[in-house]
């Protein structure tokens, strides 16, 4: 087990290095020289001043040198300063990460809690009316992008019914209820696709598990259907579900950008968009690397969870 973890960690570090370098490469190829963001165009007549600023920001060094410098700072938690707001990137990230994290956690928890019973029910009654309704709904949800769902919900729940705010964000510290009010609609918009994906996974997995001999022997022991479904079938299915949740974090992270934009939430995604429009390359770099890091970390964590849940793998390594 330990060599397995060690191998995973080495791969993790290698991937993160490659990811950060690729991001650096991309961001530094951004058209519109960063100098435009630093100095207003009309002030750029002063060549000497421009040169001085370039030197100050290290824009004259070769890219690999700048990457090395950035990486050296990054591992110490310093992702540089925002060119636009001149606050540090890391302070902006720590300020905004909780918003995105809460949105994602609420979305995943809500989706999993709904998808498990739906998927199990559909699998148990395979081919029945219940299954047809659940599977049909999953297929429909799979086709509704977050921005369409979000807009529809804003229209219905905020504009027509006036139950919830259309946009904005109340921090957790402002009270749980106010916080929840602002997270419900964005989370629901993101949840549709997640629910659909998870429900389909749970359904097909439980359907396979129901064919297993140990399910038959559990029946022959006189265990109740619900007990068999949730205590015997769901555990193997949960392995697949965990993997899919991990892989789907990528889509979800992309989704948060859109939903944070739509609901004007002060999260990482919204900040990334703003930074892209402002050519704030330090910020773009910091956030993109962070998002990719989250994605890679989650999937490494999934691998590790796998070992905890499936004793056979634990044994094998």
């Amino acid at each position, binding site marked *: 087990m330990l060599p397995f973890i060690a191998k995973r960690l080495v791969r993790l570090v290698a991937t993160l290095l490659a990811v950060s370098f690729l991001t650096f490469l991309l961001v530094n190829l951004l058209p519109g020289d960063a100098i435009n963001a630093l100095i207003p165009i009309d002030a750029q007549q002063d060549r000497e001043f421009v040169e001085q600023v370039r030197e100050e920001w290290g824009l004259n060094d070769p890219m690999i040198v700048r990457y090395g410098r950035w990486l050296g700072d990054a591992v110490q938690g310093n992702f540089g300063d925002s060119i636009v707001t001149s606050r540090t990137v890391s302070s902006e990230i720590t300020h905004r990460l909780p918003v995105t994290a809460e949105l994602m956690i609420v979305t995943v928890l809500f989706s999993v809690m709904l998808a498990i019973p739906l998927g199990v029910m559909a699998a148990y009654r395979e081919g029945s009316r219940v299954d047809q309704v659940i599977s049909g709904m999953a297929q429909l949800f799979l086709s509704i992008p977050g921005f369409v769902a979000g807009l529809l919900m804003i229209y219905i729940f905020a504009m027509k019914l006036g139950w919830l705010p259309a946009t904005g964000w109340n921090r957790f510290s402002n009270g749980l209820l106010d916080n929840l009010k602002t997270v419900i609609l964005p989370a629901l918009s993101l949840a549709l696709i997640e629910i659909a994906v998870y429900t389909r996974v749970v359904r097909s997995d439980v359907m396979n598990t129901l064919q297993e001999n140990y399910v038959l022997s559990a029946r022959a022991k006189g265990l109740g259907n619900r007990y068999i479904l949730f205590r015997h079938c769901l555990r193997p299915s949960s392995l697949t579900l965990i993997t899919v949740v991990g892989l789907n974090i990528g889509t979800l992270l992309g989704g948060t950008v859109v939903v944070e934009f739509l609901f004007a939430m002060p999260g990482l995604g919204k900040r990334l968009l703003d930074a892209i429009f402002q050519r704030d390359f330090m910020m773009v770099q910091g956030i*993109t690397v962070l998002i990719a890091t989250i994605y890679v970390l989650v999937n490494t964590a999934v691998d590790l969870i796998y070992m905890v849940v499936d004793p056979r793998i634990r044994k094998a390594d």
Partner: protein
Amino acid sequence: MAAGTGSRMSFFTRICAGWLIVIVLGAIFADLIPGLKDPNYQGFLFGDGATNERPSWNHLMGTDNNSRDILARIVYGARVSLVVSMTAVVMGSVFGGFFGALVGFVRGKTDATIMAAVDVILAFPGLVLLLTVVTLLGRRDLMVIAAVVGFLSIPPYTRVARATALAVSRREFVMAARAIGTRKRTILFREIIPNCLPTLMAFALVNAAVIILLEGALAFLGLSVEPPTASWGNMVNAARVDLTINVWPAIWPSLALVFTVYSLNNVGDHLRRSKAVRSAAL
């Protein structure tokens, strides 16, 4: 189509397939559709119609907040979805399919190198990488967007093709071909690639749906094709501001998008099911 797949399409799946055909034909021959308005004609500038008009005989779906005909914009907007998703499918399956089949068959160092690169690119959430690259390129006409999306589609196809090629390489007929000394290149083109195609095609249908959603999101953020070119995503975004005044300019393109993606998934599921039956029969 139903006859070709060997298993019966349900009525609903037929409707979905029909819708896809309508969308594709409409997008290709948009200029030839009689009575279809100019998608960029702003009637109110010429005293001809108003903004946010309700549906009428003149404008079947009404007009948007620039008094442009929504139906025309949806038909032309389909072009963006179509071109982007088709480019992704073609580039993905040609390049990704080839690289994947190649490295899955020959293994070794090439495999390790290419898959490492694929892993790094796939370590980025799709939309985030797309956002950054599209912004980087500055110009945002349809060809640029399609090329970027197409290029970023190569890694996932590579991964799928490689996994399939690995499985195919272990099949008896490949072993047999190797045993009688067939050249590797011949095996790759005659045995491996043809046997990867069905899986790739099934993946392509699902992927086309994903790409349409991705382009929609990008357009909604204002980062796909530049206005005034219509795309379903930027139509929804434009209509967002006037949601209180008129919700229809947001509803129509949303419906078009949702139903197209739904149809792709539905037909894709159907094909996969009928293929499952066929491979079980073999």
